[in-house]
């Protein structure tokens, strides 16, 4: 069951490269902390998922690289090839000779349609190489200019061309104080368009990852490469093979399908957040030991209190008491700052995962009233350790994690829109005020759905 990755724009290509790196180095790590047989199944499952081994000595990543300028793509291709462990397919990329300005509308309305056929041909070729197409995984930034506009358009094309496939969008949420002045417009447009075509949006916030780098990874001069590596580590911890059923005999062959089915069956709730614990620099790993109960306790509090990482968790936040009263439809009875979930997925990797007690995540008070924990909570496990972490727990959560950031972005964008600032940049390429209004409406609907959990 193979996933085709579509790397869009500078951000998408750089992150995509780090993701394949992380996955490959994890697979080659002989310290899997498990039996040789287990290691081999893990490796085979991972290879089937991400790489194609047909006619070359080195596994070829199942990916399509798209960008408007050639620099980043050629860098990405050469870095991968130099690693010696894996590479990209030489023909599987598309770029323009010259850049095309930092403009969302330009990407969506002009470059997208112009290059649609070439790009979709590349995707089709990758899809046909798969014996079983497990779906598409796109990586892009939300607020960049041409990259995000083009990315939104490509996502739409993917949905049209593969209506029966799973489609997961990984989006990078920009820094709150980012440099692009119209980043909020771009974000609103990207999100609203993605929401229509995609099955789920998995979000990484730049601010959060930056803090992780600073506080947990102890990096002094944080570069984009550091940020991308943290993101890649977190994504790898979700997408590497696991057993999705209790007592399963084989690694799951349907990672995207399983993810979608457990987290995003409801069409209004598609925003997913990701948390990892523990998170630390590689050279500290050897000196730290953790216990599962401690990790689970922290992870749960991170969920409830909407903490972005394992430091600075607010332990005062408690779940509401579901007394004998009828569960209320409005969340006014819930304490402030409490993060209500629609559904959660916990992924455990490493030593002794079969004996971990996850009962605290099955507490009905964590979830919205119309879903019981049996439907809302799932866990995947494997004894095979990931990336040298002896124990690692990841949480993919469909909850109010992104409610505040979303509200923020929409609010700022609306303020700008009220004074029609910079709108001409969009209208001159065919994105009219009406399209803006549609996007605002769609996102207001999402905000309202999540608020009333």
């Amino acid at each position, binding site marked *: 069951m193979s996933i085709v990755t579509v790397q869009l724009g500078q951000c998408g290509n750089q992150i995509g490269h780090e993701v394949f790196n992380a996955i490959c180095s994890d697979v080659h790590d002989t310290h899997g902390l498990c039996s040789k047989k287990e290691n081999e199944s893990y490796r085979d499952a991972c290879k089937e998922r991400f790489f194609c081994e047909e006619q070359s000595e080195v596994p070829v990543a199942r990916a399509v690289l798209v960008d408007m300028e050639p620099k980043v793509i050629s860098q990405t291709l050469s870095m991968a090839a130099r690693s010696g462990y894996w590479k990209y397919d030489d023909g599987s990329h598309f770029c323009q000779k010259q850049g095309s300005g930092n403009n969302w509308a330009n990407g969506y309305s002009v470059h997208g349609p112009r290059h649609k056929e070439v790009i979709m041909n590349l995707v089709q070729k990758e899809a046909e190489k798969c014996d*079983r197409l497990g779906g598409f995984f796109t990586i892009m930034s939300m607020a960049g200019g041409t990259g995000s506009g083009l990315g939104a358009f490509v996502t739409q094309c993917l949905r049209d061309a593969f209506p029966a496939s799973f489609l997961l969008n990984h989006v990078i949420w920009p820094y709150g104080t980012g440099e692009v002045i119209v980043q909020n417009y771009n974000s609103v447009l990207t999100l609203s368009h993605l929401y229509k075509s995609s099955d789920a949006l998995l979000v990484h916030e730049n601010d959060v990852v930056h803090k992780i780098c600073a506080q947990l990874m102890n990096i002094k001069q944080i570069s984009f490469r550091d940020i991308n590596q943290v993101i890649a580590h977190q994504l790898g911890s979700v997408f590497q093979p696991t057993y999705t059923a209790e007592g399963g005999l084989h690694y799951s062959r349907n990672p995207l*399908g399983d993810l979608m*089915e457990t987290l995003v*069956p409801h069409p209004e709730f598609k925003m997913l957040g990701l948390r990892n614990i523990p998170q630390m620099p590689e050279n500290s790993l050897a000196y730290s030991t953790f216990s599962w109960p401690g990790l689970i306790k922290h992870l749960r509090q991170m969920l409830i209190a909407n903490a972005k990482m394992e430091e600075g968790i607010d332990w005062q936040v408690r779940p509401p008491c579901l007394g004998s009263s009828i569960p209320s439809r409005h969340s006014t009875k819930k304490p402030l700052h409490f993060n209500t979930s629609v559904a959660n997925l916990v992924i455990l990797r490493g030593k002794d995962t079969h004996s971990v007690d996850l009962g605290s995540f099955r507490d009905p008070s964590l979830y919205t009233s*119309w879903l019981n924990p049996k439907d809302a909570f799932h866990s995947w496990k494997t004894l095979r350790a990931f990336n040298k972490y002896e124990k690692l727990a990841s949480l993919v959560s469909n909850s109010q994690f992104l409610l505040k950031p979303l509200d923020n972005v929409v609010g700022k964008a609306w303020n700008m829109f009220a004074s029609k600032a910079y709108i001409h940049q969009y209208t001159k390429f065919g994105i009219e005020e009406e399209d803006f209004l549609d996007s605002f409406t769609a996102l207001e609907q999402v905000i309202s759905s999540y608020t009333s959990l």
Partner: protein
Amino acid sequence: MLFSIVFFFSDNQIRFVKAALWYYGYDRPELYRLPSDGSAGSRELLLAFSWLLHRISLLEQLLARNRVKTGDETSVCTCEDGLPNSLKGTTEKAPEHGLEGGVDVRYLQWLNGRLRFQWRSLHAQHEEQCKLLHKIHLFTSGSHVDQILGHFSVTETDLVRQPENYKQLLQLLESETMQLEAFLEWKQLEPVYWQWMETVLDNMAEEGNTCESQDARVEGSGLPKVASCCPWADSLTGQIDKLSRDLTTLREQLHKLTTRRKAAWCEKVKTREEELQKEGFSATARKIQESVELKLLDLTYLCAPPQKRMHGSHRLVFRNKHPASKMGFGRSVSKEPVSAVSATEVIRELQMTEASLERELKQLQEECRQRLDEVAEGLDGVICISP
């Protein structure tokens, strides 16, 4: 020649047998009046068995089910599930929810979404199976002893890869051969069996004449008794009655409607003709013709007798020069491909079905939209934005 067969049945088994026979349409009341302790009725059972034997080709069905699989099978049947094997009638219990007064619609949306995703996973698995099957057929082309087939089946390929499994396959083939030989023997002796059954029937007819007066009274109560032992019988009979009533009323309504419509239509045609003389005629005429043809296709397809559609299991055979074709089961492989169906034909039929189902869906969506608009008009301050 009379003899009685003595079996020991449990009460449940007896009820199940009666229910199953009723489902297949066996309406001899004497069988249903048999006591539930299995103490009497071996002759009735014999009659019922013979009836079933003939009615549903019982032995042929059993043989077909026990065939050794080639792994290349596929079904081309597009009928809705009316197979007697799936005895529907069990209703799923709605999941416990703790919410008084019904289920939250968001939970239903959740379940619907899960169903959609599961369907997609199934679809992907199916595509994978097709791809791999194609690979097998392609790579083993020209290797088969049988020139017409030309390539291995899944089972044969598996045998090549894991030769130690030959023992198991041999056992299965031997048992299938034994069954077929037994069936052949049966076929030769079959006329004797039916002759014997005739004598049994004759005997019964004689006895029946003497007891007819008694039976007449009890007969009326035959069906209700059956209904009690068959959980879905009530609903089925009720539905059948309702259907027949609906049919008669519909017929009358239809008649009235058609006469009224014809009159109105003639008026419309006259006025439209005059209009069209002024505008371009050919383009509109073509459009009208196309839509009428579509509608006609829909109707003919809906009324198509079910025999015209294909049923049953077929074996996939890969053809290099011509598109892939399929050969019907149950025929010996001879020089010319027997009852072969080309994949393009099946695809075309499926596409037609898909198109007509889509039209039906659009129609239903339109109706829903109108209904929602009506409801929204009735509510104050509510604007309905339909998707």
